[in-house]
């Protein structure tokens, strides 16, 4: 918490801050995600910029009180434009010893630790693998510890509630939320409204939650433990209408908006997989916009059905995560051959194999690029923030239709579940996406399914049901124009070259790469996907320090922006942080023969901006290159 001015109200002093990072941590049953979510909504409505990062446990219901069962939610809010949910928290709320053990090491020096003393019995400590009580053996020295028996306080507050003691204990997260609302001068109204809606059918639960929250607020206001309240003034965001949005949601909306602008039925074929399932859930609720969702028997059937829908004239969509993309490979190859518009969403998670499904990674780039048999180019683009996912979804639809091609959208767990304020686009200004189906054929004239637009090389889209257009296509190599089976050597070479050129042509239809900072200098930091926020923060700081450093974030990975090669030449060094073992780095080195330096990290956690700052600082100090 960076200090600013201090004013005093008649009660307690209020300090102005420009940003705060809070982390809630507890058992998966403690309602940490809900607590974080409420704080986020309130804070967004109060006009701050905000970024969030939920960190889910690996198990849905790990044994209570154990280390694998710890669930956390970090949020950062500010009075200025921010790019990440922050690194180390200023305030850490822990509901039990396990949460303390997992998260304490990240709390800032002098940071505030709010600790629920109710669950510090010998057994609780044992479950968290503490030999001694950390509260008494000096392990908490260096932090401002506030001990509250949240269970006892909540039960007191709910003395008149009809709930049983289990039900009352479930409200302790709301008591903690009340404390934080007081500490950070938050308005309780939005939460009062939200809880009222969420449990509309259970008034006694609404009552208990709200009573607990108000009691927490009052407790913080009146007891001596809390000395100061803090205020973070609203941020100066560009004017507009805002909504807080998670990456998965934004992506789903972008895809639906794309289909609407194209005037097409959106057909989603999907098979549940973390962290992509939420898009299926979301789109299943959009039937009133004509969206059809199909939960298939497996990922192969999911993409296959989407291809069938695309063949019959709808926009085909399939959503998955890495292992699912592996299963879809062969079918995507068919869509490449059949040249059908298909959007494939891969919300990446930590692999290989089942890996760490709730953790994030960017290691499916090469799979997206090359994970099919034969020369099988597809368009690939990536979302770089939760809100950016809207535009990326929209753009994927536009390109799939304009070029009659499969398009792979890469997101990742960090973007999917993270959130930020999103300035709603002006619907009137969303570009139309023109779609032209082949007109009915004339009698006696043979329909040519592989007739192409000379500019894009996209083939015609012939909708079954249209008279005069009957034709046969498939995965066998086909003769140009007629689409008939062909084993002709020259034709095969020609068709492979044509399919590759068609994907290359997309570069003419998308925006060139831009830079954060000047388009020339000493160091260019390249990023793609969710590393954007952390790179932005680090590069802005280094620019302030006077370094000639810029950053560029690639939305398009295949094809790469036309100006990228020239742009890299404008800098002495190019550094590329990625949450994989250097996959984009490898592509750029081979394509441009530029000595791109890879900064790789694959621990399942997003880059912290401090990590990137440290790396770049070292790199700048060793002009020969190689900060390692």
């Amino acid at each position: 918490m960076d200090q600013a001015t201090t004013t005093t109200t008649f009660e307690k002093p209020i300090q102005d801050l420009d940003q705060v990072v809070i982390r809630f941590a507890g058992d998966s049953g403690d309602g940490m995600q809900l607590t974080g979510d409420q704080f986020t909504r309130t804070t967004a409505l109060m006009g701050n910029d905000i970024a969030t990062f939920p960190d889910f446990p690996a198990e849905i219901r790990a044994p209570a009180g154990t280390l694998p069962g710890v669930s956390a939610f970090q949020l950062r809010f500010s009075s200025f434009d921010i790019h990440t949910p922050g690194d180390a928290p200023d305030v850490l709320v822990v509901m039990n010893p396990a949460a303390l053990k997992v998260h304490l090491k990240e709390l800032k020096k002098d940071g505030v630790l709010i600790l629920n003393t109710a669950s510090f019995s010998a057994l609780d400590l044992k479950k968290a693998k503490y030999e001694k009580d950390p509260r008494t053996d000096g392990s908490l020295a260096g932090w401002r510890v506030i001990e509250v028996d949240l269970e006892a306080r909540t039960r007191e507050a709910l003395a008149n509630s009809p709930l049983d003691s289990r039900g009352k204990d479930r409200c302790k997260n709301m008591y903690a939320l009340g404390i934080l609302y007081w500490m950070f001068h938050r308005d309780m109204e939005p939460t009062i409204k939200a809880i009222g809606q969420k449990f509309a059918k259970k008034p006694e639960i609404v009552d208990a939650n709200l009573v607990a929250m108000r009691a927490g607020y009052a407790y913080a206001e009146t007891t001596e433990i809390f000395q100061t309240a803090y205020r973070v003034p609203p941020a100066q965001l560009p004017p507009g209408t805002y909504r807080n949005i998670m990456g998965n949601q934004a992506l789903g909306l972008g895809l639906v908006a794309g289909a609407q602008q194209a005037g097409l039925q959106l057909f989603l074929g999907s098979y549940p997989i973390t962290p992509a399932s939420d898009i299926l859930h979301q789109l299943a609720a959009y039937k009133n916009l004509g969206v059809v969702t199909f939960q298939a028997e497996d990922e192969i059937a999911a993409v296959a059905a989407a291809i069938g829908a695309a063949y019959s004239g709808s926009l085909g969509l399939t959503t998955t995560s890495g292992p699912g993309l592996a299963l879809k490979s062969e079918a995507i190859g068919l869509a490449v051959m059949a040249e059908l518009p298909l959007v494939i969403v891969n919300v990446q998670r930590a692999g290989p194999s089942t890996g760490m499904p709730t953790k994030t990674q960017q290691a499916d780039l090469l799979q997206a690029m090359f994970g099919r048999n034969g020369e099988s180019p597809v368009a690939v683009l990536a979302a770089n923030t939760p809100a950016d996912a809207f535009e990326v979804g929209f753009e994927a639809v536009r390109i799939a239709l304009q070029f009659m091609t499969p398009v792979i959208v890469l997101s990742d767990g960090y973007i999917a579940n993270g959130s930020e304020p999103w300035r709603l686009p002006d619907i009137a200004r969303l570009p139309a996406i023109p779609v032209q189906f082949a007109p009915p054929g004339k009698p006696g004239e043979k329909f040519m399914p592989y007739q192409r637009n000379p500019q894009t090389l996209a083939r015609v889209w012939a909708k079954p049901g249209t008279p005069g257009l009957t034709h046969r296509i498939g995965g066998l190599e086909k003769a140009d124009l007629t689409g008939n089976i062909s084993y002709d050597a020259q034709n095969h070479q020609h068709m492979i070259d044509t399919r590759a050129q068609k994907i290359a042509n997309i570069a003419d239809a998308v925006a060139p790469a831009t830079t954060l900072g000047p388009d020339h200098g000493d160091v260019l930091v390249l990023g793609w996907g969710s590393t954007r926020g952390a790179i932005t923060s680090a590069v802005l700081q280094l620019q302030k320090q006077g370094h000639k450093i810029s950053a560029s974030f690639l939305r398009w990975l295949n094809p790469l922006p036309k100006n990228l090669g020239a742009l890299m030449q404008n800098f002495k060094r190019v550094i590329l942080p990625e949450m994989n073992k250097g996959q984009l780095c490898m592509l750029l080195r081979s394509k441009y023969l530029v000595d791109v330096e890879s900064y790789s990290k694959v621990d399942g956690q997003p880059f912290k901006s401090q990590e990137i700052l440290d790396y770049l600082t070292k790199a700048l100090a060793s002009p020969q290159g190689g900060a390692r």
Partner: protein
Amino acid sequence: MSTTERPVLQKKDYKSDQDVRWCPGCGDYSILNAVTGAFAKLQKQLHETVIVSGIGCSSRFPYYMETFGFHTIHGRAPAIATGVKVANPALDVWVVTGDGDAMSIGGNHFIHAMRRNVGLKILMFNNRIYGLTKGQYSPTSEQGKVTKSSPMGTVDYPFSPIALSLGAGGTFIARGVDVFGPHLEEMICRASAHQGTALLEIYQNCNIFNDGAYKTFTDKEVRDERTLAIEHGKPLLFGAQKDKGIAFDGNFKPYLVTGQDLGKAYVWDETAETPAPAMALATMSEAEFPVPIGVFRRREKPAFEAGVQAQVAAARAKKQGSLHELLHQGEIWDVK
């Protein structure tokens, strides 16, 4: 549109201009002939008909038809066809597949299409062999079969596609034979009339890799004695003189009846709620009993695509969605 406004299509009009590339003598030719015959009888419109296939000799079928055709990937035709049908239920969607394509690599999609009752007409060419890959055994090959990949005979037990479909909840399940042209044509017409998934298993001779697989009951000399043409509402009788019958005991165990007992022959009801008699016919020993052909089961059940599109229509009728509303969901705020 009424059919009177449309030109009458001849059988030949359903054939494309592509040269047919099956081996001379392959049973697939007879099936192509029966399909074009049935389509002409039904006056199917070329542009409203889509034929989706997987991979195999059988799956080359769409290229030879003058309809919309999609030759896809091995085993996935039912899934792709599901997308075609659900996205546009007005299309008449057919799947052509083989015993390897549908029962082996595509077994999962096959059973789920049956379970969902998607309006697909599935023609499964069962030659009890992998034809295209030159003669390995398939999941319908009889146990002990010697093939290139089973020089000492197969150890696998085969399954009956009819029994599998019954187990998967199929609503129309029938069997025809390549060489029984008129019967096959009738089966195709009946499959076409069904709402929901129709499975027509077609015994097909691969004269290169599994020649004579069905000859013990399809040859002219033995045909009457060795096949049982099942017909709705009629007793299960066979033989040139219809002097033999099949009856079931209380556990649906089949036994032969003749002479005075002929009256005990089971009266076939393809619409029976219980699949037990159909299962009994589908699994009775080929060696001991005649081979049943015809419609094993036909049940009325709403088709999947109709249910899906009805939900969309109901949601729209309740409240037509708009992009504006969609984007402005949840808590929003203005920054001036």
